[in-house]
Each structure stands twice: as structure tokens, then as C-alpha cells.
């Protein structure tokens, strides 16, 4: 697996290729962000940057405003985010509540509509860089399952970079997540985190 760091304006391919975080000009493909480029799989993963919402993403947010049955949710995103309570939703929220929800729709690329919300009561929240979330979740959720198993902690990871934790050893889970955030571009992380968690647990 050959991955290299590319920078905005770097030439990726001499031919036009449709790729996320890249653009085509004069039949050539260039990078648009600072990221890791995998030539084999034609993928460019951004290393920094704000949350780019996708439909069906699971996100964690804080209710920031309540208007009748419409809730405004703070997702650490530059646009607006609304949770509209349906006819059969029993749950009501107040300002400051933490919710886990799924993105149902994105209007004009800047208004997010949420659905399937459920409250996350108690616990602590942690904000990390949204670009590091895929590493924190891991392939097939291996990484996050490992953290919640070893720290005996209930963890919910929002794609927007907000992580909610409750119970068990929250401090240990936080440390593991921050380590992943710091070293997301390195390989062999799952093993490293496992070692780290087991060592710390022994102490």
C-alpha cells in the first residue's frame, strides 16, 4: 500500500479521474486539499478540515435552540442543523441536551436535516478533528469497539467529530482517542492503542 502526502495544486494524474477532494483541469487531475493520496485506489483522504456532511452519517450534537417542535442542533459545522420532531416522536429535548442522530437530508449543502434522534444523557463529550473520525472508528468498527471494551466505557462517535462517552474509565478512553487523533496518518495504530490500553489498565 503506497500512500503519499499531497498538497493543494499537486498533480495526481495525467488523465481526468473523478475523485473526492480533487479537481480536473485541462484533462489533468489535481489535489484540492492537504491529504493522503492512494494511487492504487484513486482515493485522496483529507488530513485536516471541517466536517463535510453526507446523508446517513451518524452525528452527535448539542441542542442549541428549541422552537416548538423544531430543534436547532450544534454540530460544529458551518451551516445550520435542524431536528424536526415527527408525529410519533415522544422524546422532547431542552437546550443543552446531547443527541445522537442520522443525517436524513442536506439542503443547499448548508442545512442539515436530522432524523432518528436519541438522547445521550449524562457522560462527557469530546471534540476531535472530523477528518480523524474514520481512524477512530477503524475498519469495521474494530478500533472503537476495542476502546469501549478495554475501557469498559460506552462510546458514541459522531462523524462530525463529537465523541460522547459514559461510564467505565473515561479518562483512558479519552487518552486513546486523542492519541489516534494525533497519529491518524500513521499505520499500525490498532495494535498500538491495544497495547496502550492494556498497559494503562494494569496500572
Amino acid at each position, binding site marked *: 500500500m503506497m500512500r503519499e502526502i499531497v498538497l493543494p495544486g499537486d498533480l495526481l494524474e495525467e488523465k481526468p479521474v473523478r475523485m473526492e477532494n480533487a479537481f480536473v483541469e485541462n484533462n489533468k487531475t489535481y489535489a*484540492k486539499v492537504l491529504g493522503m493520496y492512494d494511487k492504487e485506489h484513486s482515493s485522496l483522504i483529507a488530513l485536516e478540515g471541517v466536517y463535510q456532511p453526507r446523508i446517513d452519517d451518524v452525528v452527535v450534537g448539542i441542542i442549541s435552540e428549541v422552537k416548538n417542535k423544531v430543534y436547532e442542533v450544534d454540530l460544529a459545522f458551518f451551516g445550520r442543523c435542524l431536528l424536526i420532531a415527527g408525529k410519533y416522536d415522544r422524546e422532547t429535548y431542552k437546550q443543552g441536551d446531547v443527541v445522537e442522530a442520522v443525517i436524513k437530508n442536506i439542503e443547499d*449543502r448548508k442545512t442539515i436535516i436530522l432524523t432518528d434522534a436519541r438522547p445521550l444523557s449524562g457522560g462527557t463529550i469530546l471534540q476531535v478533528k472530523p477528518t480523524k473520525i474514520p481512524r477512530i472508528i477503524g475498519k469495521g468498527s474494530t478500533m472503537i469497539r476495542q476502546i469501549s471494551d478495554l475501557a469498559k466505557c460506552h462510546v458514541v462517535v459522531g462523524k462530525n467529530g463529537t465523541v460522547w462517552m459514559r461510564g467505565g474509565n473515561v479518562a483512558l478512553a479519552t487518552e486513546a482517542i486523542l492519541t489516534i487523533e494525533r497519529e491518524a496518518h500513521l499505520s499500525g495504530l490498532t495494535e498500538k492503542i491495544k497495547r496502550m490500553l492494556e498497559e494503562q489498565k494494569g496500572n
Partner: protein
Amino acid sequence: MGGSAANKPKLIIDGKRVDGRSFGQMRQIKITASVLKNADGSAFIEWGNNKILAAVYGPKEATPKHLSDPMKAIIKCRYMMAPFSSLADHGRTGPNRRATEISKVIKEVFENCVVLTEYPGSQIEVYIEILQGDGGTRAAGLTAAAVAMASAGIQMKDIPYAVSVGRIDEHLAIDFNMIEDNYSDSDMPIAISPRNNDIVLLQMDGGLTKEQFMRSIKMAIDAGKTITDLQKRALREVYAKDEINGE
């Protein structure tokens, strides 16, 4: 820039410039990316005696609301010289005509490089703080801000750089320092997008002939190869450094 001809110092001594450089030689440049933890992206540049800090925040919700554009991001730029930044004869600091003008032209450079349509309704803030100034601060500030912008992960089509080219008598020279800047016959800061050598900023004091102008542009593009290289190396170093310490 505004130095009176009466007390003009000798700018060329024995075929060399006041600080001993040749006409096509730039000052030493050192760029460090991601120096501020609180900012989304940042860079520190030491360009000769210039010391400049650049920080980028965003994209975030545009405020005040009426300035936001529902189709694309807006860019706010603040270029400012620190009160202790400059030689005594440079005058007072603060939001003056000069700082406002430089903020505006740098803002326009980024409006041409950033993919604004990716972030509708948002704003991106660029802060350039001159800690120590010694001529050519707008060029150095822009070069640093471009690195900060890339390190913030903002989608852009290129990393622009800037450099000044000017004329002392009949000699064209690159990268003026403060004395040359004040007393030269012509001074022209240029910002270039290196991917296709598009000129994104061009200002000029004094005069150049058409032939001198074309040669100036060529000098800027040649010097730009070094600057682009330093910018990219600074950005790569942030991750390469971790690679060594990580294991």
C-alpha cells in the same frame, strides 16, 4: 515607497546591493507550518528580517449574517503590523490606510485560490500579524497565509506565493528590503499561483518599461520555484516529523 530623493542612500555598492546580495538573490526564508494549536491552520515565516505569523480560522458560520453569501464562502483578511514591528521611521501602526489596502488585496488572492463554493454561507478568516517588518511584508505575509490556509485543510486550487521585484537605477532586483523598498525607483509585489503561473496580485510603485516588466515577471517566477518548494516542505514536515517520533 515614499523615501525622499534628497537623502537617498547608495543602493548599489561595488555591483552588490546594500545587504551584500546580488540582484537575483533572495533573502533567507524559513517557513514553519502549524505553529498555533488553537487556530485551524497557521504558519510562521522568517523572510530575512521579516518575522510574520499567519493564522486561518474556519470555515465557520458567517457573521454578521447579512454579509454571508448563500452560494459561497466569504473571506475576511486582517493584515496588521505589531506596534513594535518596524523601524522607527515607518510611522504609527494600527488599522491605517496601508493595512486596509493590503488586507483587501490579500483577500482577493485567496478568493481566487480557495474553492469557495464548497463552503456556502460560511466565512474563512485570515490573520496576518507582522511581528518584525523589513520590507516586502505583504509578499511574505501572503506566502505564510497560503501555508496556513493549506494546513487548515481548506479546499484550494493552489498554494500561491508572493515576492517583490523592483528596479534600482537600471538594474532589476528581487526581494527588496526596507531601505531598497523606500528609496528604489520601482517596486512591484507579485503573487503567483504556481500550478499554471497565473498572476493573482500585482501592484506597482514607480515605473518600468515593458521589457523590464516582462523580465521582472520572469524573475518572480524563477524565484517562486524556491518559495513554493519551501512552502510545500513546511507542510510536509508537520507530518514527517510525527512519522519519526510516532514509532
